[in-house]
């Protein structure tokens, strides 16, 4: 299983959001680090087929990003997502399961299982609008896992989670990374340190670092701040 990203670019009128990024990802957890506006979300959206690239290709095991076959293997958690106001947590997951093309009886089993995994079994029949931010985020993680994705893309997945939930989430991602390609973006450096097998660092639309981060490399947060020191100084 391999995700091949070849010279992927996204250009707007007077800004290059993603600048010719090339990657080959195999099963494992990849942490995407970068400051606000570095291009992380744009890159993720192109990998998920939501945004059309200006140039380059994205292929997962010979399936191009624009195909139904590709999307069938994809699980995506956006940075922020909405919901239909009449949906309960259960309705939301069943709806997403129908969009992912899951057969109804299988979907019911899978939804029940995932509700337990993310700890929302008791809130399953409550409306999503009554959920806290953390609960909504966990629901988002659950929907991303419905189709047992080979490629899991998570944009700021730990935002809104309390420390206990964050640890639970890290364990879950660690397990998933054994069989799937997991790409997660975050501002929280400690999440990357604990979960990611490899680190991808973006700045101004370009990859400035990719590879494993070991103790010999030093402190990741310090390296991150050095790279983005200009932006950190302005804050």
């Amino acid at each position, binding site marked *: 299983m391999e995700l091949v990203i070849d010279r992927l670019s996204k250009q707007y009128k007077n800004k290059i959001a993603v600048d010719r990024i090339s990657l080959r990802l195999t099963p494992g957890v990849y942490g995407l680090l970068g400051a606000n506006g570095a291009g992380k979300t744009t890159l993720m959206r192109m990998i998920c087929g939501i945004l*059309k690239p200006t140039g380059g290709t994205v292929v997962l095991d010979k399936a191009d990003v624009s195909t139904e076959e590709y*999307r069938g293997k994809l699980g995506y958690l956006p940075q922020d997502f*909405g919901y239909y106001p009449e949906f309960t947590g259960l309705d939301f997951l069943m709806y997403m399961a*129908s*969009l992912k*093309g899951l*057969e109804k009886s299988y979907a019911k089993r899978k939804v029940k299982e995932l509700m337990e995994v993310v700890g929302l079994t008791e809130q399953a029949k409550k409306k999503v609008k009554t959920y806290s931010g953390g609960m909504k985020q966990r629901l988002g993680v659950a929907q991303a896992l419905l189709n047992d994705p080979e490629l899991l893309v998570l944009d700021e997945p730990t935002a809104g989670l309390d420390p206990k939930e964050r640890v639970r989430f890290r364990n879950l991602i660690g397990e998933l990374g054994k069989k799937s390609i997991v790409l997660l973006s975050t501002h929280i450096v400690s999440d990357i340190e604990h979960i990611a097998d490899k680190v991808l660092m973006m700045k101004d639309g370009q990859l400035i670092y990719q590879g494993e981060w070991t103790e010999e490399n030093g402190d990741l947060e310090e390296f991150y701040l050095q790279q983005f020191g200009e932006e950190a100084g302005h804050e």
Partner: protein
Amino acid sequence: MKREMKTYLQEAFEAPEPVKKKEFLQMVRTENVSTFDFVKAQIGYIRKRVWVVSVFIFMLVLASADYVGKESIWIVSALVPYIALCAIAEGTRSTAYGMSELEMSTRFSLKSVILARLTAIGCLHALLLGVMIPVAGGTAFLPVIRSGIYVILPYLLTTVLGLLAVRKLYDWESTYVCMGCAVMVSLLSVWTRGFLVWIYEEKYFIWWCALVVYLLVKVIKEYKKIIYQTEDVAWN
């Protein structure tokens, strides 16, 4: 197996705990659904109010045909914007409630969702209009085609204005603007019938047809723009 036998067996033997249940279930996982099954499932997710409003207006028109007689065609053209409002609301729900990004990343993506919903609602509306137009038009002694044009134009006008509102506002508040558009077109229908009766004369019918064609093309373009805009607005 008889119930008693089953009970005796359950009491006599303890079933072993399932081992590797998850792996087994994944092995026997059934085939993914077909496109037809997906469309069928989407019909279930169309809000009940869409069916209720559409059928209610239909029943109202049929009832009025008896009591109001030849003016019933104008009642249809005044009520039809509210039927169009249902279609707009369902077709643009994903955008209005921030579900677009999630729906664009699934196997059956946003375009499929919108198409499935609109196909189902379109079929219902075509059926209802197909009955309402000849019934109401007949009472006014108008040919079916002419009656159809007088009814379809406010439907399309409401749709175009509503889609424009959704594209410009791009959030759930656009629903209220769409309602306003429907009310406006409905009142316009009533007003033109009262104060601009001459535009309904046969010699101007060709202009009505041209306007319907124009609005039909606009509707298709507006839907395409909404889907295209979703990715750009998501980034911005």
